């Protein structure tokens, strides 16, 4: 028992000892406690509420984005397709028309050629029959008449070409303008719908916010009351 004797004595004496803490010690502890009280309660409550709220809003935003994106995709695809088809149409029709004009040109050339061929034939004839003035006159008339016809044809071809060209020029903008207007209308409609939806959502969110805040304030006040 001897080894514990010193310990025992020291222990007894020390355990009996009491040191009165300074007067302001409790005040310090009180202040610390009140600070600690306010901190965790508020922070935890507010943090949890804020976290839940942020989570919900994020989910909502994601959902809305998804909906919007799908709508956009659905809306944008046909627009693109329409444009493309129209472009293809625009591209294809002029080509065909160009081809047609080329064909017409070819035809005109062919006509010219045939007329040229006809000319020498008529010219050869007068060489063979010098005496035949009537023939020559007729031929001259024919020659005269033929160039007129040919020039008329030329003019006609050119005018046709010009018409086709101008028609193309006129047609292209017409075609391009019409779909653009249509696209704009769709886009406007969709955007307007979106705006309407967004405003409605905002209103809902705002109302939820207000209710949440009122609930929060009542809860917070309850503790103090």
């Amino acid at each position: 028992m001897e080894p514990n004797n010193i310990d025992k004595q020291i222990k007894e004496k020390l355990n009996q000892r009491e040191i009165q803490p300074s007067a302001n010690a409790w005040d310090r502890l009180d202040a610390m406690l009140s600070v600690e009280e306010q901190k965790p309660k508020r922070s935890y409550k507010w943090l949890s509420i804020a976290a839940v709220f942020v989570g919900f809003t994020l989910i909502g935003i994601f959902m809305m984005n998804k909906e919007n994106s799908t709508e956009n995709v659905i809306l944008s695809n046909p627009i693109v397709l329409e444009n493309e088809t129209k472009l293809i149409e625009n591209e294809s029709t002029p080509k065909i028309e160009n081809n047609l004009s080329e064909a017409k040109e070819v035809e005109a050339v062919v006509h010219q050629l045939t007329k040229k061929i006809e000319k020498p034939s008529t010219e050869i004839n007068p060489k063979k029959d010098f005496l035949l003035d009537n023939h020559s006159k007729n031929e001259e008339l024919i020659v005269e008449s033929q160039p007129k016809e040919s020039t008329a044809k030329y003019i006609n071809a050119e005018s046709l070409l010009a018409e086709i060209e101008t028609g193309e020029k006129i047609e292209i903008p017409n075609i391009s303008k019409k779909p653009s207007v249509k696209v704009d209308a769709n886009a406007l409609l969709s955007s307007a719908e979106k705006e309407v939806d967004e405003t409605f959502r905002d209103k809902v969110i705002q109302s939820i916010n207000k209710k949440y805040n009122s609930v929060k304030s009542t809860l917070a006040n309850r503790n103090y009351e």
Partner: protein
Amino acid sequence: MKVINLHQDEKNTIRLAVENNRHAQHQIYTKFSPKMLGVCRQYIKDLQQAEDVMITAFMKVFSSLKNFEHKGSFEGWIRRIMINECISFIRVQKQVKFIEDETFFEERHNDIESKFSVDDIQFLIDSLPDGYKMIFNLYAIEGYKHQEIAEMLGINEGTSKSQLSHARKMLQNQINKLKNYDNGTE
């Protein structure tokens, strides 16, 4: 009946203190703070620092009061928190390093004469280095086993034993000095 009433009272005050009832917290504080400041003073020589540590320990007491299972004494529970706070304070503030020395001596025992006051004893303990002081306090006064002390301080069990024997030896020398001083004056 009195004991039961007291026990019931303590339970009630604890329950109220858990709910952050400041009056109940103050009751607990006024009941235990003088003793707990004494405990802190055992480990920390500076009274102001000891009080600071006691206050932070009381903060921990109140914050973890909801975890207090009514097994064992409430005082003992608070005391453990105080001691842990003191140890962590000393370790952080003073960065005590324990010499990994596993030699310990057979203890020669000398009764402390009963004329030694608590202040004398405190003076003796204060004269010990922080490492020795902690282990001596934990072993001799709190009654922890070497294994527990080793775990608390993160040292070997052997180190705890050797440190205790060093502390005892030093303490003995101090006691002898005091005795001689006393004898000299007489």
